[in-house]
């Protein structure tokens, strides 16, 4: 499932995938894969992304049923 909330949060901070990748220490392709829903990140990476974007885990990664 696509993670549009992550994409929106990143765009909201005016960050490119490459810039966010640099902030959290992963490749641009990994950020792209997470946004496309092709890769499920570990909790550590989720936390790093949340910290970089100033969001909580719920806001970016919790799926409402």
């Amino acid at each position, binding site marked *: 499932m696509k993670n549009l909330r992550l994409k929106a949060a990143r765009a909201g901070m005016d960050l490119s995938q490459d810039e966010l990748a640099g902030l959290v*220490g992963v490749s641009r392709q990994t950020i792209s894969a997470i946004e496309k829903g092709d890769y499920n990140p570990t909790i550590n990476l989720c936390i790093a992304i949340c910290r970089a974007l100033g969001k909580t885990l719920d806001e970016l990664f919790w799926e409402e049923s």
Partner: protein
Amino acid sequence: MNEKTIGFLAGIAVSLVIVYIALKKLNSDGKATTKYDERQKAVRGKAYTYAFWAVLLANCILLALSVNEPVIERLGPVLFFVPVFIGITVQITYSIFNDGYVGLNTNLKKYLIFMIFVTIINVGVGVMAAINGQVCLDGRLQGPFINILCGILFLIVVVDLLIKNAVENREA
């Protein structure tokens, strides 16, 4: 240990030193180890699995071929390299096309130039040996043929990386 064995081991030692120096120069942080993120590590793990099965399959095919044809005899020292060549090709190709090959600290431009350089050297050595008639003696492939295979392997890396780069640029 005879002279040939000592020469072979010395060649491996020199190669390892060259690879170590090359990695330090090719990585943007000056370290010899290439860094990968968690997704890339997962991709590489899968690539090694496919490579493992490819090596097993290649060995089985070689064994099957050797039943009726003296393939093993004709391959000579190249025999040991053929399954490895196939395994590495599978590992590299899967990694590249799933974004698990180029590390976080790899300078891709420098890496490509280095690979082209290594390809030319290996193919050059192989071609020179072929001209001198050292690639195949008495119907048996000889050591210099491994240089040609290495050249092809490095060329595959370069072509895979260029194709992947072109696909990414088109998608961007």
